[in-house]
């Protein structure tokens, strides 16, 4: 999936300018990091791509389609093509690991056989194949984060968005998670990861987009 921001601005109703004049182009199959201090607009940028928020100015093109031309009814179908790992929308603890990961498939109406196959494939990729029947509560923080990633990729999305996926993890686990994203990118998925862990981002050697107070201050080089 290809993402293009053209002078995008987002002003919240409170008057706060979360983003202004943000432009960048993320090619199909590219992997990039989004960094910046907290409040710089990383989450807002991701929400705009997910159509959780709408931009106030500028243009967002996804695969060449202007998101403003999509109505409310198109949002669910847009979201099915994007896998997300968001910190605050995590796992449901009233069901097993399997059913957490299966949720995107259920929503898009996959049959049981297909669901079983895809969920196990996704869990295998994140190294949790043996734990599908457990409640996510029984797993460690790193494992829970990996369930979230499995859920994000189970629908074979063309774009993977991750907002601070390594937030509460130690450096070794964080590196593991980042390697996972790299693997998905290697099979052609466009990946955009927001992180404030500059050291880790620098080690990954990918394109880095830096936001500062809602403006894109750096695009390209390693942080």
């Amino acid at each position: 999936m290809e993402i293009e921001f053209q002078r995008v601005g987002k002003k919240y109703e409170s008057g706060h300018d979360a983003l202004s004049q943000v432009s960048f182009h993320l090619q199909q199959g590219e992997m990039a990091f989004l960094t910046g201090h907290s409040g710089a607009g990383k989450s807002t940028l991701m929400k705009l791509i997910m159509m959780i928020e709408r931009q106030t100015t500028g243009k967002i093109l996804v695969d060449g389609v202007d998101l403003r031309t999509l109505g409310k009814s198109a949002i669910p179908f847009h979201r099915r093509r994007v896998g997300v790992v968001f910190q605050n929308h995590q796992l449901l603890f009233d069901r097993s690991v399997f059913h957490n990961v299966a949720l995107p498939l259920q929503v898009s109406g996959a049959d049981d056989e297909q669901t079983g196959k895809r969920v196990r494939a996704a869990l295998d990729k994140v190294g949790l194949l043996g734990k599908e029947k457990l409640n996510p509560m029984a797993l460690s923080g790193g494992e829970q984060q990996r369930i979230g990633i499995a859920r994000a990729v189970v629908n074979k999305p063309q774009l993977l968005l991750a907002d601070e996926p390594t937030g509460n993890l130690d450096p070794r686990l964080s590196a593991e998670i980042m390697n996972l994203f790299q693997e998905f990118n290697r099979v052609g998925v466009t990946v955009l990861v927001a992180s404030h862990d500059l050291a880790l981002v620098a080690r990954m050697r990918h394109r880095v987009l830096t936001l500062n107070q809602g403006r894109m201050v750096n695009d390209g080089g390693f942080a």
Partner: protein
Amino acid sequence: MAKPPQQRPAQRGATRQSLSNNRQSAWRAPSFDFKLYLRQHQAFLIESFTRLIAHPLASLMTVMVLAISLSLPGGLFVLLKNVQSVTDQWEQQSVISLYLFSNLEDTEALALSHQLSSRADVESVEYISKEEGLRYFEQSSGYEQIMSTLPENPLPIVLKVIPKAIVDLNTLPELQSLRDHLQSLPQVEYAQLDAEWLQRLATMINFGQRFVYAISALLVIAVLLIVGNTIRMAVESRRDEVLVMKLVGATNSYIRRPFLYMGFWFGVLGGVFACLCIMILAWWVSAPAERLIELYHAGFELQSFNAVEIIMCLTISAFIGVIGSWIAVSRHIRDIELQ
């Protein structure tokens, strides 16, 4: 950084446009799959029932509140139905009795009887001769011995005129004017329309009907509110789930569905218990009610809900359940937005 769009050559813009038209299809809903639709509905039907059972006490309490709210209008409906069936029986008996002058000859009386039965507003005329009258009198009153002591039969010839119009409040004036007309005939000593009690009863039934409608309307609203509130709380308790579902691309109608089924189950179960309540109540009052009606020399069997009415009751209650949850859910799911 990407170039601003206006610097791009026009030609490239054009190809991009056609490309985007092609790609736009990815945002549209996939073509409708009926089998999938049915399968999802079946799954939701079962899942929502399992959820109710998972909290048996809370669910039972809600169901019982619904049952009680539904059984009141249902019970009143049964009561009204029975009162109406009793009055229907009495309606058939409504007649204008003409007591003819006792000096009238049988032939003259018969002629009058024929004349009256050919009237457009008269259904039939029953001719009761003096002898027949005497026999009825002896049978029913127990004055047999007194009558036998009388030198001659003192009873007049009676014509029982059965009007075409069914007696109710609307036809009552018409019947009264018919009675007045018959009274004015020279052969008639006295004409009696048995309808005053009916006027009172009809007024009472009318009042009763309106009362039942008003109570029913209020209680239907109560049921809507109860279901709505219960479902609203169910949505609230599954807020995280709703958010995650929205995030992974669930449509609002998909998110709404399990809650609508929950409302459906509340409605159906409330209806089942309401029917049970009404039937038990009907059974409980049937013996004294039948005895009471017997005192008025009328054959009467208390009617409870029949099969059609049970199905109607369940359909209506299921419908109210779905509507109640629809109102609550569509409002609430829209309010729960990703942030």
